[in-house]
């Protein structure tokens, strides 16, 4: 393997072209900085998405799975999960996991930033909801969010730019149940365009969001950020798997060594390095970047790189209804959500809470999913037909996502044996759910069953899922103290002043909501600070 000579020194390298990396690249290029993004995946063609084809549900389980260990595409790296209760999910491409995400666009609530102060567990963030609110509102505009302002689960603020997507029969039926009980619900907020928006097509409610949107209605950052970033002069290198971030004699980041898809190694020099490779990929890269100055991995003097991994526990409660509900219609996506039991009530026997949202149950293979786990005899024979008849078009799902509190034993480390196709050590995930999380999920599943019953469900089925690690958080946490955190509130590494981490790794706590809105708002806040700092330095010189 030969190392090709470096290109010119970039002002900034961004590693990863997903949710946070896209934000950084666009802002840096817009500010006139030279920026090179190294992305191990490639562009995904919209025509490749399977949602309009009859085999959609069958290929969603493999080629379009969000699990890299199942999908096994050339851009993926394996993740050792034998010591984990949850499988981490991701998509390695331009746009990253936003290509396959459900586009639930949900903010943290104020208490999520003050968990220690309010509930005496975990830690407070080094910023508040009010600090982040302007960035949330700007990201709503950038992503073309559809929703309805005025949700009493949140402080007042600017409404999303687009009206809410239709609730459909399933959302309205679920809302009727919540109305009966006097419980909170609100039209779902989604990064899916209800109307044509900044070059994106309006949603046609096909309901195949999680295998990529064939219509270009869902806000994935290959659509929302990359065209603009490239027009400003950003350089994107696809098929570039970063092996190591290098450091100079002073311990400052000097660039990145990466391997192209022909196996050739390259070096890209830079004045600053931003890591945006998700809560598994980022600690993997930092731990792989060992040197004399950083024998335990880059920026790891705290020993916390890879520690405190949080992945939201998830349960799906499917209700079966006598009435036809067209329960394959999208978005999927969330039609409505509820924060009724989000905040702590210690009388329930646990702290923190969960968010609920309604999803369609999909086509015939999707509705059969609800019966998996039952005795095999009840899944086949005459019951095969009975189950499909009861559920196809007559069901919907309340998804329950619980807060996962940080635990240093839940972690990403390097596997001793497993490597990717470039012989780079692969990550190993070690993860156990807590007693608090189990009690929380039991409580919430019981309440969701009540919600289904109030809406008229004749039967409910509950599934907890192993393949629910959509949200990879906490493995390079932010904080003010370099002994107990990896980066500061601007994503700047305590140990390496020109190294930044801006993805979900920096989360202090996980909240109980889908994190992409917060990841991107934080990334915007961090990168704007970086740009301001550079301007200040330039003006001084």
């Amino acid at each position: 393997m030969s190392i090709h000579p470096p290109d010119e020194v970039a002002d900034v390298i961004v590693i990863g072209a997903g949710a946070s990396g896209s934000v950084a690249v666009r802002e840096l290029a817009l500010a006139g900085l030279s920026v090179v993004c190294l992305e191990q995946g490639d562009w995904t063609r919209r025509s490749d998405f399977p949602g309009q084809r009859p085999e959609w549900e069958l290929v969603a389980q493999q080629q379009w799975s969000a699990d890299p260990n199942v999908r096994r595409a050339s851009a993926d790296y394996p993740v050792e999960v034998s010591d984990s209760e949850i499988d981490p999910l991701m998509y390695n491409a331009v746009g990253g996991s936003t290509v396959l995400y459900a586009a639930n666009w949900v903010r943290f609530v104020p208490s999520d930033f003050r968990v220690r102060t309010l509930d005496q567990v975990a830690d407070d963030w080094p910023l508040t909801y009010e600090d982040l609110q302007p960035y949330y509102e700007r990201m709503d505009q950038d992503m073309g969010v559809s929703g309805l302002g005025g949700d009493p689960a949140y402080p007042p603020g600017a409404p999303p730019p687009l009206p809410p997507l239709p609730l459909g029969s399933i959302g309205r039926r679920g809302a009727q149940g919540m109305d009966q009980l006097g419980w909170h619900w609100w039209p779902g907020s989604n990064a899916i365009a209800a109307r044509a928006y900044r070059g994106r097509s309006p949603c046609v409610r096909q309901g195949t969001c999680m295998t990529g949107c064939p219509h270009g209605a869902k806000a994935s950052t290959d659509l929302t950020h990359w065209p603009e970033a490239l027009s400003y002069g950003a350089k994107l290198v696809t098929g570039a798997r970063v092996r190591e971030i290098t450091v100079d004699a002073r311990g400052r980041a000097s660039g990145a060594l990466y391997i192209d898809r022909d196996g050739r190694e390259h070096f890209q020099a830079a004045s600053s390095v931003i890591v945006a490779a998700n809560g598994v990929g980022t600690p993997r890269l930092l731990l792989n970047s060992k040197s004399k100055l950083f024998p335990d991995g880059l920026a790891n003097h705290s020993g916390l790189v890879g520690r405190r991994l949080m992945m939201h526990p998830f349960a799906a409660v499917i209700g079966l209804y006598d009435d036809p509900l067209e329960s394959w219609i999208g978005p999927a996506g969330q039609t409505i959500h509820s924060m009724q039991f989000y905040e702590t009530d210690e009388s329930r026997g646990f702290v923190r809470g969960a968010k609920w949202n309604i999803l369609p149950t999909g086509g015939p293979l999707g509705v059969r999913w609800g019966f998996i786990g039952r005795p095999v005899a009840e899944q086949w024979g005459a019951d095969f037909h009975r189950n499909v008849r009861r559920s196809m078009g007559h069901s919907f799902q309340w998804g329950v996502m619980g807060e996962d509190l940080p635990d240093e034993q839940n972690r990403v480390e390097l596997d001793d044996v497993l490597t990717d196709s470039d012989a780079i050590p692969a990550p190993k995930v070690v993860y156990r759910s807590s007693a608090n999380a189990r009690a929380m999920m039991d409580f919430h599943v019981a309440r969701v069953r009540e919600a289904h019953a109030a809406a008229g469900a004749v039967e409910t089925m509950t599934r907890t899922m192993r393949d629910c690690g959509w949200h990879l958080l906490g493995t390079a946490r932010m904080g003010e103290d370099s002994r107990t955190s990896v980066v500061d509130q601007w994503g700047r590494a305590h140990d390496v002043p020109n190294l930044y981490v801006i993805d979900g790794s920096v989360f202090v706590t996980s909240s109980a909501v889908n994190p992409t809105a917060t990841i991107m708002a934080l990334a915007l806040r961090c990168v704007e600070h970086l740009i301001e700092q550079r301007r200040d330095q330039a003006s001084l010189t």
Partner: protein
Amino acid sequence: MTVSGRDDELRVRYAGLADVLIPAFDGMPSATQADVVTYWIDVVLALRTDLGPAFFEALEHAEGHPSEAVARLIDERPDAFSALGTLTAGAYFMNERVRELIEYPGQTTRDFVDELPLYLEMLERVDERGPIYRPTPDASHDGDME
């Protein structure tokens, strides 16, 4: 990797297994009546090549009466049985006549409709109950805040 390219004995064996899993019932065709064995299974095997080896492992270890063979596979070769079930169900639902019978038109598209008037009254009751979030407890910052 196809079923149609295999010998007659294997195809007959698969037909027996497929109809145990998906028999004719209350107006619905069986797997063989829905052309699963003669056509659709080869289509889905081409789509899910990852399951081919386990699927054929199931067929090769399914001697004897189909019902008994299915029971044996469930106990002794659960992964092979899982592949058999996934591909057979997937093949069955590829048949357009089957989709019509279960009233599934596929993932169709439709235009935007403003549904707010349909649920506004319910939503107003949520609004009337007031805020449910806990505000930030300390408005003043500490440390190196902006």
